[in-house]
């Protein structure tokens, strides 16, 4: 492949200016990442991992470092609508790559729970960062992973000691404010759950205006023996935004990790989830919903690697594509030779609502062990005509019926979100996305309760 060095350099060279030296351990990692970045070309359609995701219009632009002044202009009432106000939680607010202590609220914790923004944690607990930074994200040779490694600004460090449970959810609220330049907002998160500990982590991405910002996130997670992490990520940015995020998890014996990825926003979003089943009996559940319209491009990628016996994994990703939107799913399961008694499943289902919407789905399964239960599947379809007619014959108007069925398609992924407040927040967004309302959110909640209680 012919390298166009100048285009890549032009893309990130302005980020070099404020490249302030942090502590030496971070500095070494950043320098190493920067070196690797210099050796790496933009991903193109010729790369297997980027076959359907064209970043051509992004590659001719030039990233600008985010400036603190942008974040300082933000007033509390602008942040308020994006908080889950009925949910007690630790909230960490980030604006354009900067931590906003005055909008954040971390409730007092015992010494056994650490929740801090990265800059803070670097001075208070450098050993944690030193131990884990770059150790779980092993994707390698990925342009946006190196970009993050070289230029990450902020993030969060969460560390739970053995046998503690974080009683209330941790909410990471990322806000972007764009202007005439393409600002770069980047985060590096480290989440370490000690043996037998548990936590719920919610990440939400929003835009405060309609301008373009590029968000680049890498999260590294360790779930130690018997630990449980529920992790929800909602990408609800404006339709001019770029998003490149990756979540990397290492699962130790009998630990549980659940990830729900919801993508409604962005002009181009790419989300990677990499789970390494390192411990016997570990369990990983991955859910995803990408609902695109207009010209949005949404790319979801999963890699689940089974390296231990008796581990289970399950993936359910659903796409709903309208107008000229494009959805990509690229999911892999690797079962190594010694990972006997693995159970690994993967399903990608897509609903196409218009003539011009497109889906590329690539489920992938590689098995080297001989005593396993694995399956994968993919489907692309339209709304069920019989179901539409049934609803209409009961007096439900065609548009409402379409909206109901679209919602119904997404429901099992939404239900994987265990926090009622987050689901509630999402319902309202989805009503807007899937057409006119056909019932108030209140009804939805009360009917959900009926369903759960089996009344």
């Amino acid at each position: 492949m012919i390298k166009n060095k100048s285009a890549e350099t032009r893309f990130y060279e302005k980020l070099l200016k404020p490249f302030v030296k942090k502590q030496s351990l971070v500095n070494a990692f950043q320098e190493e990442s920067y070196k690797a970045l210099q050796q790496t070309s933009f991903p193109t359609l010729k790369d297997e991992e980027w076959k359907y995701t064209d970043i051509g219009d992004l590659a001719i632009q030039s990233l600008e470092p985010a400036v603190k002044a942008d974040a300082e202009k933000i007033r509390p009432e602008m942040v308020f609508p994006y908080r889950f106000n009925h949910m007690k939680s630790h909230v960490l607010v980030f604006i354009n790559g900067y931590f906003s202590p005055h909008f954040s609220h971390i409730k007092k914790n015992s010494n056994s729970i650490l929740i801090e923004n990265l800059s803070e944690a670097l001075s208070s607990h450098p050993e944690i960062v030193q131990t884990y930074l770059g150790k779980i994200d092993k994707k390698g040779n990925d342009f946006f992973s190196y970009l993050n490694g070289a230029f990450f600004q902020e993030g969060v460090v969460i560390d739970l000691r053995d046998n503690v449970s974080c009683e209330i959810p941790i909410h990471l609220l990322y806000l972007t404010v764009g202007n005439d330049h393409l600002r770069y907002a980047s985060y590096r998160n480290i989440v370490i759950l000690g043996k037998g500990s548990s936590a719920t982590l919610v990440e939400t991405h929003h835009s405060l205006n309609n301008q373009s910002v590029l968000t680049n996130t890498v999260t590294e997670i360790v779930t130690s023996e018997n630990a449980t992490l529920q992790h929800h990520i909602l990408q609800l940015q404006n339709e001019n935004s770029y998003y490149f995020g990756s979540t990397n998890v290492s699962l130790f014996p009998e630990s549980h990790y659940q990830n729900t990825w919801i993508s409604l926003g962005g002009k181009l979003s790419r989300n990677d989830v990499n789970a390494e089943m390192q411990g016997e009996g570990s369990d990983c559940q991955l859910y995803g919903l990408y609902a695109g319209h207009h010209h949005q491009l949404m790319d979801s990628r999963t890699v689940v690697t089974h390296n231990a016996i008796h581990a289970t994994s399950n993936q359910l990703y659903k796409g709903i594509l309208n107008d000229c939107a494009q959805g990509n799913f690229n999911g892999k399961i690797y079962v190594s030779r010694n990972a006997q008694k693995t159970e690994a499943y993967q399903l990608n289902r897509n609903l196409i609502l218009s003539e011009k919407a497109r889906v590329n789905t690539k489920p992938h399964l590689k098995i080297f062990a001989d005593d396993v239960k694995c399956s994968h599947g993919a489907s692309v379809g339209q709304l069920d005509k019989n179901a539409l007619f049934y609803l209409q014959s009961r007096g439900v108007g065609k548009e409402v019926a379409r909206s109901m069925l679209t919602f119904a398609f997404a429901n099992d992924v939404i239900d994987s979100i265990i926090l009622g407040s987050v689901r509630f927040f999402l319902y309202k967004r989805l009503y807007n996305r899937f057409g006119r309302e056909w019932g108030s959110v209140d009804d939805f909640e009360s009917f959900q309760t009926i369903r759960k209680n089996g009344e």
Partner: protein
Amino acid sequence: MLEIHNLRVSINGNRILKGINLFINAGEVHAIMGPNGSGKSTLAHILAGRDGYVVEEGEVLFNGKDLFALSPEERAWEGLFLAFQYPIEIPGVSNATFLKTALNEIRKHRGLPELDAMDFLTTVRKRMKLVDMDPSLLGRPVNEGFSGGEKKRNEILQMAVLEPRLAILDETDSGLDIDSLKTVANGVNSLRNKDNAILVITHYQRLLDYIVPDYVHVLFDGRIVESGDKTLALDLERKGYDWIKEKTAES
């Protein structure tokens, strides 16, 4: 209430209905019987507005309005209801959400205020007793995992909640054991009044022991070849459909 004039319908170029005439007044119960493939279900579906059929001739008036000018939902708003022979499963939509949405759409078009969740639940629970339906089915996705009997009860529950002017029951007896059949029939009977009408489509006479018709019509090869009162159904039960076939062949 319903007037069918010389209705000729084809599907994929095959003529299925070959000139149907049928008149149903408020307060009446009509039964259409006939052998398999005679066009019974086609008639039910085309009245409810399913697409894929070509109306080649004739017209249908419902409350004086041209039925074929109305969309399926508009027909429901006018008071037409079809109880499906094979009710559709809709994963992800709860029965409660489905019924409440349907009821409120219909109420809106009748100029009635919409019901909130609480009022709706009160109404629907009352109606569920009528068809002896397990209340937990309200919270489950529409028809998903329902037994054959539960699906048919669910159809009659919808009829009870939506209160149509004309209910068409398409082979509602198929797949029902005798106890369920009685329950479903009792439910239908309790909804009968002088302002509504019922069209029962069935292969067997069995259901008509419980939902007693005022008129019985025999549909054969796309035409109504015989009409009479409830004794016609008993004749058919005794003699079978061959008798009709022979009679048609002679004429």
